[in-house]
Every structure is written in structure tokens, then in C-alpha cells.
């Protein structure tokens, strides 16, 4: 006979304001099999948990139902409390009467009736629960960090400094990411390269970090603690082990007019190149699409110029298989294509540029060596117009969200411009100045008050060329008047978007993503650095637009998660896994194909003489994630999910 304890939480007023908890407790008290039904203001608090434990001991409860918030909030809390009172934790279930009841209903009477149904149905389930034991799986203590920008480097260094092995994979020829492209950084104006490059070197030289640049992830298999990752090492056509980075080949390469990706198309590079002078590793790659030899079969000047014979045109992509325990995804972002805004003239007028291009102009390592010059004629611009939200907060053409960093970098750009071009006039069109962050508002005030950044609250409707000037027509909504400004250069604060291949990549490694292609966290507030897949963590702007401090903080947080995982030799996993009934299994292998985790294998059943009499499906408990896809597929209903058996679900439904 079941002795179920029902614990009805008021959640302060979250539940009690709508649901009559006293009526609920008394209704459940009369339900068959319920031995104790009590209510309390906060069951998740210490005295609340104590009362659950006391009720378990006093009544010898065989099962517990906590009627409270979502199981995602406190299932673990109450299961732990039950275990401490000697009850198998899987005999405890949560009935969600907050998100699924009190929060969404107005009529208290009906909400209470619904809450009674929800809790009753869960009591019926718990009556059929079985005790389950956690599954232990081994952990490979080696982390993979994908992306060598500031977030990836930070995560890799934090993990490596704690003594664990790291493989850092970057798809570009050098570490650095977007941060290496920046000039100065807000709100302190320290030089981005000066704080970035030493970290790049540190990561490259760290004895615990294995650096794979110009490499991409081909596939990810396995599960938390036990991933198998295949990496494609793209052919550099330069021998990594012998090249010293002398740069002779780069100097001699005749194809010199290729738009440099690193300089956002403002600067030029050669076909054999390193993205920038401080590249790590300082080993060039050959851009196959632009190399004269690859195009025409003639040239090989680099081969002749190389003193160490490092160039190898026959080089092929190589593959490497890695055993990995945890993955940090730090694949970063892209800037939106401004060509979306034809009215701003991007792509049509050379002097309409985006924020990242301005960074390259202002950077000492950039194509102008830090001088602010117009891309069209190299003249110093006397008036620069900055247009904020060129893509962000624009549901019709751009993206719905705020890109978060543009208010700050535009203020910074105005400041840098004021410092570099004395007497230059900056005009900034903005919607709001969003400067939340340590020292941020002070920074924007400084731009306005000390560096005379001229802020105009309003949008720009059109940019056109007239008598050599870029005419900017907009509106100053504070004055309520249209304005026209004759500018020498226009800088668009472009939206930060997900990498163009982010969704494809998410599918490859098996994590979720949102409508924009940013990767989904497991819980926005409580598990912001974990992806929805166990053992895969997120860092930086691949999750949502972030500035440098936030990216670094998240990278360190994900490193802490990885290190916590690596702190044990074995990993305990939830025993919610599929179980196959071998006597009814027809061996059609539909489940084997349907399983997204490759967790189902074929098993031979033999008679005493060793002859195979039947082949059935068999679930690998280490691989199974308990998603239930196989259960729904199985026609003969042979597969069941521990903790969510069909019997339990059926009882739950019939309890309504």
C-alpha cells in the first residue's frame, strides 16, 4: 500500500494568491494512498525541507509529491532532501502548480480545481514509481574549446591553469577573433592588441593547451565526459613544424591586392598570408582561391623565396580524432551585412563604413596605422556621422534585439576621432544611450562633455552624395526638426549577429539555438553558461551579443563548470534511460536509427549451444539521454523509459 506525502508550497504569494492551498491540501488528504498532506509558505527553505524529511520519517512515506514551481527549479532540491531522509530520490516528484497553474489563471476557484487535478495525477504517477540508482560513467579529463577569440582563450587558460588538458580549436589561421581587430576598448581605452596578444601567446605556449588553428570541427559523437570529436586540420600548404614565420614568402608573393578579411576589406593582403603581424601562430597559410599557382599552375615564387623549403602545394586536409570530456563553445559572432540598408549607401559610397571597419582605421596595426582617413581618398574627415542601431532593434529589416555593444563603441569611436582629429566634428544619431555597466555611463558622459560628441536623438532616413559630401538626412526628435548634415564619413553601428553557419554548427555538435542562430543556454537565469546538452558549455557572443567583460566572465564561468566536471573520476548521471523488453522486441531496428545519440545496439540472444536464436535492441546506459524518441517509435511498445514508464504516464493521465 502506498503512503504518499503531499507537500503544497505557497511559493510566498506566487501560488497562494490564486490557488486555495488549504482546500488543495484537504482534497489531497482524502485521496487514496495519501498518508500526509500539508501546506507551507516556502518548502524550498531550510525549515520547509526539514518538514518534508520529518514527514517522511514520521509516516514511513513511500513516495513524495511536492506541489510547487517547475521541476526545473527545485526537483533536485527536493530529491536531495528525500534522499537525506532515507527515501530513494526518484520516489519524489514535482507537481507544477505555479507556471502551469497559478501564474496563468485569473479565476482562483478554477485554478484550485486545476491544481487538485495536477497534484492528484502526480500522486497516481508516484504510486507507480520505482526506486532508481544513478548511473556512473567515466570522465575523460580533456576539454575542447571551440573558438580562439577572447572567450575561447580565457576559457582555455582557466582550465589549463587548473592543471587540466585543453585542445583549443580555431578555424582562422590565427588566434585572436574579433578582439584582435579592435583599436582601443571601452571604458578604459586600453589598447585591444596590448591586452589581447599576450593572452594569445600565453595560450599558445601553455604546456597544457594544444592549439589547433586553421581547423574545424567535423563531427561530435558521444556524451558528457566521453565525447569523440573529429577535427579537420585544413591544409595550410605551409609546413607548420619547419616554418619560422620569417615572412619572406609574404613579401615576395605577387598577388598583393586581395581584400584583407582582418582589415574588413579596407586593407589588402597577399595570397600567402598571416591575418595580421602579431598572428599566433606566426605561420602563414596559402589562400587557395587567390593563389596564382593554384589558379594557373604557374608562379611558385613563395617556394623559391622560402629559405627552409616549407611550402608544400600537395598538402591535403588532415583529420584528427580526439577523446574529450567537456566542450566549451566560443565561436563568436559576425556583423550584419549593412547592404540591407540601401538608403544608407553602404557598398555604394566608399566612405560609408561599419563600426568594425572604423576600428581598423583607428587601430595602430590597421591599414592606415591608426590615422583616421577616408577610404575613398585618404583625406582626414572633418565631420563624421555615426548612425546607431543600423540593424539592431529593427524588427522590419534588421534584428529585433539590442546588440548591446554599439552605444558604447560608438561613444568610443567619437572619442578616438576627437583625440586623433583635432577639431573634427562628430554627430551621433541614436535611439537611446544604453550604457549599463561598470564605468559605462561615465564613459558616454565623458564623450559628450569632454570630447564634444554631438548626440542627436533620432533616426536617419537617407544618405546621399552631393558635391563630394555625404549628405545625411535625419530627424532630431528632441527639437522636433528634420536635420541635414554634410559629412565626410558615415559610420554605421551594425548589428551583431550569429555566425552565418551557427545553425549548421549547432546541429553538428548537437546543441540548441534560437531564432537568430545564437546558441541556447539550459536556463537563462540559473544555468546561463550550460547548453541544453550535458557537457557542452557556452562562452561569449555565440550565445548572445556581449562585450569583452561579459565574454571573459562567461568564459571563466564555463571553465569553472568544466573543472567541476573534471573534479571527479566518475560522473553520476540521471538513471532516466530507455529499457527494452527483450521478450517482445521484434528486432526491426527502427529504434537504432531513430536514436539521436547512437545509444541503441543490436544484441544477440543465444541458446545453450551458443546458437543465435534472436536479435534484439539493447540500450547502452552510458549513452542514453532518456529523450524517449525510441519509446514513441517502437511499434510493439517494447521500449520503456525508466522514471517515465508507460504505466506511470498512463496512471498520470487517468488521474486527471
Amino acid at each position, binding site marked *: 500500500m502506498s503512503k504518499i506525502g503531499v507537500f503544497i508550497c505557497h511559493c510566498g504569494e506566487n501560488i497562494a494568491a490564486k490557488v486555495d492551498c488549504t482546500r488543495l491540501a484537504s482534497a489531497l488528504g482524502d485521496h487514496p494512498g495519501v498518508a500526509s498532506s500539508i501546506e507551507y509558505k516556502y518548502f524550498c527553505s531550510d525549515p520547509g525541507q526539514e518538514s518534508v524529511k520529518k514527514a517522511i520519517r514520521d509516516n514511513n512515506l513511500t513516495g513524495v509529491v511536492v506541489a510547487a514551481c517547475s521541476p526545473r527549479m527545485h526537483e533536485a532540491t527536493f530529491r536531495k532532501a528525500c534522499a537525506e531522509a532515507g527515501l530513494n530520490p526518484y520516489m519524489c516528484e514535482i507537481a507544477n502548480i505555479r507556471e502551469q497553474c497559478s501564474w496563468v489563471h485569473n479565476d482562483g476557484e478554477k485554478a484550485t480545481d486545476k491544481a487538485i487535478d495536477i497534484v492528484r495525477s502526480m500522486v497516481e504517477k508516484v504510486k507507480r514509481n520505482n526506486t532508481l540508482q544513478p548511473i556512473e560513467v567515466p570522465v575523460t579529463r580533456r576539454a575542447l574549446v571551440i573558438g580562439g577569440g577572447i572567450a575561447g582563450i580565457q576559457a582555455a587558460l582557466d582550465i589549463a591553469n587548473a592543471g587540466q588538458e585543453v585542445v583549443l580549436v580555431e578555424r582562422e589561421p590565427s588566434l585572436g577573433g574579433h578582439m584582435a581587430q579592435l583599436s582601443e576598448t571601452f571604458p578604459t581605452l586600453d589598447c585591444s592588441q596590448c591586452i589581447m596578444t599576450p593572452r594569445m601567446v600565453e595560450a599558445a605556449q601553455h604546456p597544457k593547451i594544444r592549439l589547433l588553428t586553421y581547423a574545424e570541427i567535423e563531427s561530435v559523437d558521444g556524451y558528457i565526459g566521453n565525447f569523440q570529436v573529429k577535427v579537420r586540420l585544413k591544409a595550410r600548404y605551409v609546413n607548420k613544424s619547419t616554418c619560422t614565420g620569417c615572412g619572406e614568402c609574404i613579401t615576395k608573393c605577387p598577388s598583393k591586392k586581395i581584400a584583407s578579411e582582418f582589415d574588413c576589406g579596407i586593407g589588402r593582403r597577399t595570397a600567402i598570408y598571416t591575418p595580421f603581424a602579431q598572428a599566433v601562430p606566426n605561420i602563414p597559410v596559402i589562400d587557395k582561391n587567390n593563389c596564382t599557382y593554384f589558379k594557373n599552375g604557374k608562379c611558385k615564387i613563395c617556394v623559391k623565396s622560402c629559405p627552409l623549403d616549407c611550402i608544400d602545394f600537395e598538402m591535403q586536409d588532415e583529420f584528427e580524432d580526439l577523446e574529450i570530456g567537456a566542450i566549451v563553445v566560443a565561436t563568436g559572432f559576425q556583423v550584419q551585412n549593412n547592404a540591407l540598408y540601401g538608403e544608407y549607401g553602404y557598398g555604394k559610397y566608399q566612405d560609408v563604413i561599419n563600426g568594425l571597419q572604423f576600428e581598423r582605421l583607428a587601430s595602430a596595426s590597421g591599414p592606415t596605422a591608426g590615422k583616421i582617413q577616408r577610404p575613398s581618398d585618404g583625406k582626414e574627415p572633418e565631420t563624421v556621422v555615426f548612425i546607431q542601431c543600423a540593424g539592431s532593434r529593427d524588427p522590419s529589416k534588421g534584428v529585433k534585439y539590442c546588440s548591446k555593444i554599439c552605444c558604447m563603441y560608438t561613444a568610443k569611436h567619437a572619442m578616438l576621432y576627437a583625440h586623433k582629429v583635432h577639431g573634427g566634428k562628430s554627430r551621433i544619431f541614436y535611439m537611446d544611450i544604453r550604457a549599463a555597466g561598470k564605468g559605462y555611463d561615465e564613459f558616454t558622459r565623458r564623450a559628450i562633455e569632454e570630447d564634444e560628441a554631438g548626440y542627436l536623438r533620432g533616426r536617419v532616413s537617407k544618405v546621399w552624395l552631393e558635391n563630394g559630401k555625404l549628405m545625411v538626412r535625419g530627424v532630431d526628435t528632441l527639437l522636433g526638426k528634420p536635420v541635414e548634415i554634410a559629412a565626410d564619413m558615415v559610420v554605421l553601428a551594425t548589428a551583431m549577429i550569429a555566425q552565418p553557419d551557427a545553425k549548421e554548427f*549547432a*546541429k553538428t555538435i*548537437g*546543441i*540548441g539555438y534560437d531564432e537568430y542562430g545564437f546558441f541556447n543556454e539550459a536556463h537563462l537565469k540559473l544555468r546561463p553558461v550550460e547548453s541544453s546538452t550535458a557537457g557542452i558549455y557556452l562562452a561569449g557572443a555565440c550565445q548572445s551579443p556581449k562585450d569583452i567583460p561579459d565574454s571573459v566572465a562567461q568564459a571563466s564561468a564555463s571553465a569553472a563548470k568544466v573543472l567541476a566536471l573534471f573534479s571527479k573520476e566518475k560522473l553520476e548521471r540521471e538513471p532516466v534511460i530507455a529499457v527494452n523488453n527483450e*521478450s*517482445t*522486441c*521484434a*528486432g*526491426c*531496428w*527502427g*529504434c537504432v*536509427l*531513430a536514436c*539521436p545519440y547512437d545509444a541503441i545496439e543490436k544484441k544477440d540472444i543465444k541458446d545453450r549451444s551458443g546458437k543465435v*536464436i534472436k*536479435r534484439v535492441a539493447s540500450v547502452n546506459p552510458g549513452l542514453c539521454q532518456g529523450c524517449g524518441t525510441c519509446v514513441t*517509435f517502437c*511499434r*510493439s*511498445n*517494447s521500449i520503456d523509459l525508466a522514471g517515465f514508464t*508507460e*504505466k506511470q504516464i*498512463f*496512471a498520470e493521465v487517468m488521474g486527471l
Partner: protein
Amino acid sequence: MSIEQQYRTRAKELLSAGEVKMVIGYGAGTTAERRRPIFITSPDETERLVLDSACIANLSGYLVTEGLLSDEKRVAVFLRPEGIRALNVLAAEAQLDPLQVVIIGFDLPKGELKSLQGSSVDDFTDLLGALKESTPDVDGRELLEKIEKMSPEERFAFWQEEFSKCIKCYACRQACPMCYCRRCIVDSNQPQWVNTSSHTLGNFEWNIVRAFHLSGRCVECGNCDRACPVNIPLRLINRKMAQEVLDSFNHFAGTSKTQEPVLASFKKDDSETFIL
């Protein structure tokens, strides 16, 4: 020599040479229009085989009789193109090894007996591929078109009326080569998902479960339809599901012995956004 006589000779040769241990074919039925399956194991009995326009039942289901193929010996079977497709589905679902099956193929276009060349499933790949592209010849097309034109409410009422006749004898399941499970979901009573009594809900549950379990697998041989003692037009449900699967996934059941089951396989280019 008539096709019937040719095939009798072939069956005799296969058995005499020891190439197969059994020939599954058609024998005389209780009336001149009916044929019943016969299982010949001796070369002397091959004269009992009958082949004419009344041989419409799909015999492939007998191949998955428990233990029949477990000795790894071969069995010959008379199959129409639908039967060959069924054999492919059974092979794809690992229910038999197609190398153990010798096909004695024939077809009945417009009731005219025609022999098919080949003996192994792979010999019929082109034929089955062409079948996928052709318009299926459905018995009762007018009724199907009528049902398609109905409003959802009318259609529901139509099927409710049809299913009300169901007596849950499960003859459709017994006749179907795809219903090979050792325990059918309707026989599972812990919990009892499908109501076993023959009332509206139970009848609906059974017939809908059946339609879903056959989608992407049914080869439209018509065995179920002919077996139904109360004449529910089961072929129309199967036809509808087969068309849906073809339109949505370009899947035609039984074109090859390694075909992936449509409802269990996922592709990255599937239209559903939730597929990771």
C-alpha cells in the same frame, strides 16, 4: 507451355536440386474463384500449384513465420510486385535475410497473367523504381476522391460509420505481412493503451494505430482489405497514408532491401526545425 506449367517445372527443379526447402505458392481453393496458400516441400507435389488471375493474395507474410528461415535454408515464394516490395521492407527491418528467398515473380496487369524475370530482390530494382513513378491503380478510386472532398467533420463521420462495423477480430493484422511483432501493442495491457472492446473509441484507436504503424511501410497488397469480414475499406486508409509519405518524404515503401524506415530516420535537411 503455359506460365503455370513453367512455374510448376521451376518449383520442381528448385526442390529436386535442393536449392530450396520449400515452395510457398497457391493451390486450389474451396471454389473456382478462391486460391489458398500451399507449402510444398516435395518435388512430387508441385503439380498442386495453381497460377491464374485468382492468385492475388500476398504470400510474403508467411516468410516471417517464426523459425521458418532460422535454419538458413532457402525458400521459394510466388510474389507479385507488391509482394516483392513487402519482401524488401521485411529485409530492411531485419526480419529476414533476402538471400534466403527465391522469388517466383508474376504480375496480373488487368487480370492478365504475366511472368516476371528474376529470382532475387535486387533483380526487381528497376521494376519497383518504375512503380514509384507510376500512378497507383486503386480499387475504389471514386470513393477515395469522394472522401478527399469531404469536410473534416464529414470525413470523421464517414470513418466513424465505417469503424462502427469493426468487430476487433484482427484479421487485418493477421493477414498483413508487416504485422510481424511478437506482441502487438493492442495485446499489451500494462497499461492498456488501446481499448479492446468494439465500441467507437476502441475501434478508432485500433484503426488509427494500425494506419500509423503502416505508414511508410504498407505496400498496398490489399491483404487486410480482403481479410476484413465486415468490409471496412482499409485500403483507402493505407492509400492515403502512402500518398502522404510519398508527398512529404519522397518515400515509397519497399524499393530496396536497405531502405531506411521513413518514420525512424532523420535527415539534416528535413523541414522540421527541431531536428538538431
